[in-house]
């Protein structure tokens, strides 16, 4: 039940993620500073959102070279669940753990709004409690959130079922409206929207909170019943 929340200089959704993991879903979560290593017995790792290194050069690119990423890669190889949200997704992409790149939004602006996701793959540790094509209302908040892959990679993504979430309509110009992808094994998932902002009714204007099932999926994966 040990979940690591990786903190980079400039991470700013780390505390939100920690709160949701511990206070809402009762995980045994712990922060890991980017210069520290991850323990061997960790059960899942989450890379939260923010502006690691102030988005210098390109979002996520410097953090992808942090010491902790070596451990994240080792853990990924073992098949342990890893989730990158927003800047965390950008870091996973920049470190080569996930395919594709994240470009500036088509509007060239930072976008903070609620949107809808469609579940495309329910065979990952973070989506196994969803039905395919299920709709999830969820907020986005990013400037570089336009997912892009070349045509060959896109074919591969489709073939290996690596597209996890799509936006229900065009939001920022992402290739094929992609909002989240996974690696070939399915244990490493990255997504631009923020599930941690949508799981508490107090701050969520949509009342059935389907985003909760992202965390409930992880609980199920880890063998904890709801």
């Amino acid at each position, binding site marked *: 039940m040990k979940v690591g929340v990786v903190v980079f200089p400039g991470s*700013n*959704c780390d505390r939100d993620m920690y709160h949701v993991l511990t206070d809402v879903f009762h995980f045994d979560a712990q922060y890991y500073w980017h210069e520290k290593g991850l323990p061997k017995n960790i059960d899942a790792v989450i890379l939260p959102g923010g502006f690691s290194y102030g*988005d210098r050069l390109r979002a996520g690119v410097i953090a992808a070279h942090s010491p902790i990423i070596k451990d994240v890669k080792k853990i990924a190889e073992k098949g342990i669940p890893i989730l990158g949200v927003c800047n965390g997704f950008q870091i996973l992409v920049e470190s080569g753990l996930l395919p594709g790149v994240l470009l500036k939004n088509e509007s060239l602006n*930072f*976008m903070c709004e609620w949107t809808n996701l469609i579940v495309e793959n329910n065979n990952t540790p973070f989506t196994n409690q969803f039905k395919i094509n299920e709709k999830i209302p969820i907020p986005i908040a990013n400037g570089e959130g336009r997912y892009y892959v070349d045509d060959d990679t896109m074919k591969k993504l489709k073939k290996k079922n690596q597209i996890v979430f799509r936006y229900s309509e065009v939001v920022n110009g992402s290739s094929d409206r992609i909002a989240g992808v996974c690696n070939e094994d399915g244990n490493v998932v990255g997504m631009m929207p*923020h599930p941690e902002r949508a799981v508490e009714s107090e*701050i969520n204007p949509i009342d059935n909170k389907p985003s909760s099932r992202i965390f409930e999926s992880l609980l199920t994966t880890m063998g904890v019943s709801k």
Partner: protein
Amino acid sequence: MSLEDQELSELKSKIGREPTPTELQIVAAEWSEHCSYKSSKRHLKMLPMTGPLVINEKGYDSGVLDVGDGYVVTAHIESHNHPSAVEPYGGAATGVGGVIRDILSAGTRPIAIFDGLRFGNVEKDLQARWLFKNAVTGIADYGNCLGIPTIGGEVEFDECYENYALVDVAALGFGKKEHLIKNHAKKGDIVVLMGGSTGRDGIGGSQFASDSLESEDRSAVQIPDPFIEKLIIEAVLQARNDGLIHAMKDLGGGGLSCAISETADALEIGIEMDVDKVHTRESGMHPSEIMVSESQERMLIVTSKIKLKKLQTICEKFRIGCSMIGQVKSDNQVHVKKGKKTFANLSADVVANATLLDLPSKKPVYLKTIETEKKFKPISDYSKTLMKLLSSPNIASKIWVYGQYDHEVGIRTVVKPGKDASVLRLDNGKFLSAKIDGNPKHCYINPREGAIGCFEEACRNVVCTGAKPIGMLDHLQFGNPKDPEIFWTFLESLKGLTDFAKFFEIPCVGGKVSLYNETPKGPIKPTPVIGVIGLIDKKPSVSQKISEGDCLIIIGNTKNELGGSEFFEYVHKFVGGKCPVVNFDDSKKNMNSVLDLIKNNLIKSAHDCSKGGLAVAVSEMCMTNQIGCTVSLDKVPGDKLTVDRILFSESHSRYLLSFDKKNLSKIKDLLKNNKISFKEIGKFGGENIQFNNKIQSVVKLNVEKTHRVWLNSLSDLILHGKTS
């Protein structure tokens, strides 16, 4: 940009010798209007600043309110007008940075940003458009990177800001009472400069801001680095948790000069510092440059010798500079050395306390005739007029602005921007509601009543969320105070705010005065911007969706008060008339009644009636709920007026309430008991926003179409230059 002759001779007589060049620079920075408040300070004392919830400690740059259960909320407001008018991106961004550090220096975590933006006529003036666009991006890039949600604000355009910009930033902080920094220091303590390096940017910024904007002195504008600021926030809060901070102050206007002298003066200590120890970003800086540089993202911290090591370890973790620049002495002197050589040695009291001015004031001549109305051309189609107002830059939705701000990070935002006031949840189960409001059009016509109106409007917005106002922030922005007519408008606004604050027992917990706001065409209109903070003990009123058959009540009287209204100014292009006046007794009764109705769960939503009047307020309720409404103008309580005046008067103390029909009698009973002037004026349903006068239809607009226009017209204008 230096001391005036008389100030120079005063300085000489106070220190009994010729000042050194470095001393001159230090004193010029600290005695500038921006740092010393020399024109306004003696008058600001009239505002009530204490109250049962207010915590006053020496040396705080932000106000502190006790919100119970061992928690406090801090609040502050600042502006960055001169820099933003020259370099809007950097000016606005560093404006955010400065106010955030004020919140941090009390030892609290910043949890929300608000911004009030004012520019020239954005429809005609391309420079205004450029300033607006870049100021918004500056705020977005800075606040988003910090992970502090920008949850509210206002945007206004008026020709009086031509070639100029007002960028006001307010911030709120939250923390445990026990974590508040109790500023103290004793002999032998260490003075540390933490954060970004000191460079030649922002040199003379405070004097630049204390004069009319004549030169575009870009070197006086500071360069933003939100990443360093984010690291400082985390490092300071960790140091706070570990009890390593004895005293703390952020470096803002006047740079080190101001931080050192004000800290020494407030804590009644002396500080001896060595400029060679300051980490700089360029070599060969003169001691006086180091002393007055306004490079951003720096904090001054006083700690003990024993704790210094731990503080350095924290700074190393975050890779931020941490220079031991000086020591605390017992002599009350500000002693600046470079190595062994002394460059300045002045009494902190002399530096930090400029002689206060008592400027003359005189009622402006223009006010004699301003209330006289002219004859207007009759309007043939009120539907068109309402559509024109709803798509006008001042009234159209500001979603293009707040959609660029991360307003949800921190997962506290319960009521998001775009509503009356924003609401945050706190860790003790309570909720905080806040709003900032200004109205230069009203304030120009009547500086006193206009300022009171801004205050009341901010209160109304907060009340609509179910919160009781507990504190206010005032930001007083005027032209050159040496003009007695301008100074009169400043005093009138201040007196009005003071009267309202005393009557409602809302203490002023923070504020700022910004003077010398002049454009090539003259002074800006008086622009006080008022922030109100409200507390909700239990559940906030989150607007429920209005449905078919729900009823509409208006509370408060609609009067013949169209001076400074959007209708007069935008539609008729007329500046003048009588501006709205707040009746304090009615205001209090109405406010309390709305709170009672919310507490008793009798209404679905409450909406404040302000810019654009009843017509705009009803339209906003319809558009955000995607439902029509039919309103009978003949039922609206108040003066006997023509339909255009009922539609567009901006009288204060008015609220629109939507509710389920079944609660009608209970609501009526409560309002009658409280002796409120109110009427049931409409019913929701259908797909049109419709206003009737008796049986005659006055306005009929399709909700969906109107909504689209209202939502998109500002971005269409900014991005594509489209005007309606």
